């Protein structure tokens, strides 16, 4: 069963327009928010247990609480640079419910006393950009943005900033660099953005889904929100299901949902005659699960962490037995090599070496010692860089090689894939 706390009206076309959004209760929560104090909203978000939906899963209220307790100007940035392979939920949310995001941002801005926000959206998202532009204009025309919103005395300006193609700009300090008009290179933390972010001012960066979730939390209260999900993973989440699955798409379910039911129930299961081989449960950076692990996993932060993986962005990538794991890893090493921003040596060099080694195996030039070399290089990339991209590149390598060692051994020994029907992948990688 889906639990449509956010997505109940996404199927209605009118929901993307102001009138349609208001017809289904839109901006009523904002009116309620203005009857509360900013502190009360912050406490409600803390009590809700909401955790960042972009990938890191950090407690949203706690993050907001890091802001300095003074009148210094502060910024609210929405991370809409959705780029984690397998993830397409923010795109859906912005296409179907731009006002839900805007309402969530105004309430959040009120809670943290910010008067200026940006939605940083990836440049490829041409249609969501158009929808958001129109929604922002509607909101300004209705005086829901700008000065003295709904007569509350609260001012908030919100603008859209369009990125230009860089996975690393989804990392919050990379995004801040990009918004400042520089290369999107991450910055060393601390100082954390809440203390020193955009233009060295206190800044909160939250994902699209996180900001949208503030609306139901303030609407019905933290206790009602906590009826969804588990103790440590409160609420619902949109999961993007893709790969070798009969019914791919976005599904909103309770956190803690059994992955087996998700894949075989909502997702419709495997194509006829195919068997589940592996699942990447939280976007390409999350360590892969074997079929057996996936079938006993639950979709929440704590269970997936216990299994040595992570919930990440909520992108569930399903691979069936027609896929070669060496080949799939080659796709990922290529991606991380392409996206490394190059400022830290372990990542810049490491992603290149991982990619070279996997591709030499795919080209039939693999040596027996290469698998240990892969593990050694990946191990040396962990925890040694400014941002998490290096770890994100290392984790798939470590999990693919350790959990599907027989496929890697076979490829090295025989110079071809263990999976029947998979041929000449080397040429496809170039």
């Amino acid at each position: 069963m889906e639990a449509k706390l956010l997505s109940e009206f996404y199927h209605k076309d009118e929901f993307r327009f102001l009138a349609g959004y208001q017809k289904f209760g839109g901006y009523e929560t904002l009116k309620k928010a203005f009857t509360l104090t900013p502190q009360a909203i912050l406490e409600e978000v803390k009590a809700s247990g909401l955790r960042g939906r972009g990938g890191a899963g950090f407690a949203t209220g706690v993050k907001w609480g890091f802001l300095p307790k003074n009148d210094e100007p502060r910024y609210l940035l929405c991370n809409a640079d959705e780029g984690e392979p397998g993830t397409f939920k923010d795109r859906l949310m912005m296409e179907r419910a731009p006002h839900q995001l805007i309402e969530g941002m105004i309430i959040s801005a009120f809670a943290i006393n910010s008067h200026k926000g940006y939605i940083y959206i990836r440049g490829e998202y041409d249609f969501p950009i158009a929808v958001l532009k129109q929604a922002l204009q509607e909101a300004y025309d209705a005086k829901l943005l700008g000065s003295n919103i709904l007569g509350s005395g609260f001012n908030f300006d919100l603008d859209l900033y369009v990125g230009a193609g860089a996975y690393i700009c989804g990392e919050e300090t990379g995004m801040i660099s990009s918004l400042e008009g520089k290369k999107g290179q991450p910055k060393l933390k601390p100082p954390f953005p809440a203390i020193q972010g955009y233009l060295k001012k206190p800044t909160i960066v939250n994902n699209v889904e996180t900001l949208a979730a503030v609306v139901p939390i303030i609407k019905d209260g933290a206790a009602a929100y906590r009826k969804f999900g588990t103790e440590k993973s409160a609420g619902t989440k949109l999961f993007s299901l893709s790969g070798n699955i009969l019914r791919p798409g976005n599904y909103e379910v309770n956190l803690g949902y059994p992955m087996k039911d998700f894949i075989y129930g909502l997702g419709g299961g495997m194509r006829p005659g195919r068997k589940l081989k592996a699942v990447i449960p939280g976007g390409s950076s999350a360590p892969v699960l074997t079929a057996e692990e996936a079938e006993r996993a639950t979709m929440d932060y704590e269970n997936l962490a216990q299994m040595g993986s992570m919930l990440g962005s909520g992108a569930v990538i399903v691979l069936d037995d027609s896929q070669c794991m060496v080949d799939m890893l080659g796709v990922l090493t290529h991606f991380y090599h392409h996206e490394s921003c190059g400022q830290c040596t372990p990542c810049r060099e490491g992603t290149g070496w991982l990619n070279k080694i996997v591709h030499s195996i795919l080209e039939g030039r693999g040596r027996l010692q290469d698998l240990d070399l892969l593990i050694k290089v990946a191990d040396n990339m962990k925890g040694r860089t400014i941002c998490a991209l290096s770890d994100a590149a290392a984790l798939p390598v470590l999990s693919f090689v350790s959990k599907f060692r027989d496929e890697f051994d076979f490829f090295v020994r025989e110079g071809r894939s263990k999976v029947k029907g998979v041929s000449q992948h080397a040429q496809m990688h170039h």
Partner: protein
Amino acid sequence: MFTLSPEGKTAVLAELKRYEVIESAIIPALYIAQKENKGWISKDVIHHLSEVMKIPESKITEVFQFYTMFNQKPVGQYHVQVCTNISCAANGGRELANHLCKEIRVQLGEVSKDGKFTVSRAECLGSCGTAPMMQVNDRYYENLTAESAMNILRGLK
């Protein structure tokens, strides 16, 4: 020599005033200029933007080279980008890119003889549930087959 159209110049000047710092206008300005320069950024473009924006060429170049959506060499009238990241790769995205190159008779990343097409491979475009997919200039085409993709490209004027 590249120069912005009067409308383009007005748009770039408006972007300069839009953000807290003028450097934030570099990405928007590059988009405007790229549209007016047949889809790519030449040295001329950087030089001209530098004069219009009063921002050093080195700063603009640094930004331009960092982001994949700015093309560093000429592209065809239609830039066909086929996603070959994991969910698309598991659903034939790489085979699709190869097929389109073969049908159009163009090498990956090059411009076809008639100047109409460039076919590239792209990293994840956030269309994983509708794989395989391609982006043609700004527009997404999803749930493709080799035939449906070619039909779409043949239909482009």
